[in-house]
C-alpha cells in the first residue's frame, strides 16, 4: 500500500512564525501536491511538484513556498504565518500521467492553528 505521511497531525503557531510542514511518500511517485481544506471550499491546490526541484503554483500559492530536494519528500513553508492560514493541510502523491495511473494518495493531514 502507498503510504503518505505528514510530520504533524496538529500544530499551533504564532502569527509571524516560519512554519514547515513535511510530507513523505514511500511509493516512488513523481507527483506531489499540497492542498488546504476549508469547510465549504473543498480542497484547494497550493503547490504541485512533478519532479525533484520542480514545482508549479496552484490556485492559492500566496504566502506559501515549497521545497522538493528528494523525490520522496515535499515540504510546505509558510514564510510568515498569519491567522488566515489556519486550516487543514493535506499532502498527496501520484504517479504521472504517462504511467496510466491518475488517482492521488493522501496523507492524514495537518491541522494548523495560527494564533
Amino acid at each position, binding site marked *: 500500500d502507498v503510504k*503518505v505521511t505528514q510530520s504533524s*497531525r496538529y500544530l499551533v503557531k504564532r502569527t509571524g512564525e516560519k512554519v514547515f510542514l513535511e510530507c513523505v511518500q514511500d511509493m516512488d511517485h513523481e*507527483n506531489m*501536491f499540497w*492542498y488546504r481544506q476549508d469547510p*465549504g*471550499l*473543498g*480542497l*484547494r*491546490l497550493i503547490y*504541485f511538484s*512533478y519532479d525533484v526541484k520542480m514545482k508549479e503554483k*496552484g490556485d492559492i500559492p500566496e504566502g506559501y513556498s515549497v521545497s522538493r530536494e528528494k523525490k520522496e519528500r515535499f515540504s510546505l513553508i509558510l514564510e510568515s504565518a498569519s491567522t488566515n492560514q489556519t486550516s487543514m493541510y*493535506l499532502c*498527496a502523491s*501520484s504517479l*504521472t*500521467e504517462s504511467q496510466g495511473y*491518475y*488517482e*492521488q*494518495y*493522501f*496523507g*492524514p*493531514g495537518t491541522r494548523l492553528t495560527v494564533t
Partner: protein
Amino acid sequence: AQSVAQPEDQVNVAEGNPLTVKCTYSVSGNPYLFWYVQYPNRGLQFLLKYITGDNLVKGSYGFEAEFNKSQTSVHLKKPSALVSDSALYFCANRYNFNKFYFGSGTKLNVKP
C-alpha cells in the same frame, strides 16, 4: 473553465436504503473524474475513477458511479447504505497535467 460541482452540502439516508451523492462537471474534452471519501480527522481515500468506457464504474466498499454524458454528471451510488458510510465525499476532475479540481464536498449521514 474546468470544474466540478457538488450541489448538496449534506445527504441524509436511512441504513439499508440506497444512497446517491451528486456531482456535475464542466470540462472540455474527455472528463477524468474521481470520487474520494474522507472519514473524520483523516486524509482522503480513493473510491473510484471514471476515465472512459462503461457508464457504470464499480469502486471500493460497494460504491459505484453512474456517468451520464448528456447531463454531465457522475453520481456516486450504493444500493444499501451502512452507518459506517457516514463521511465526507468529494468528486474531482483531473486537468492540466495531473492537477485535480475538487468539489466542495458532500457530508453523508446514514442513520440507523
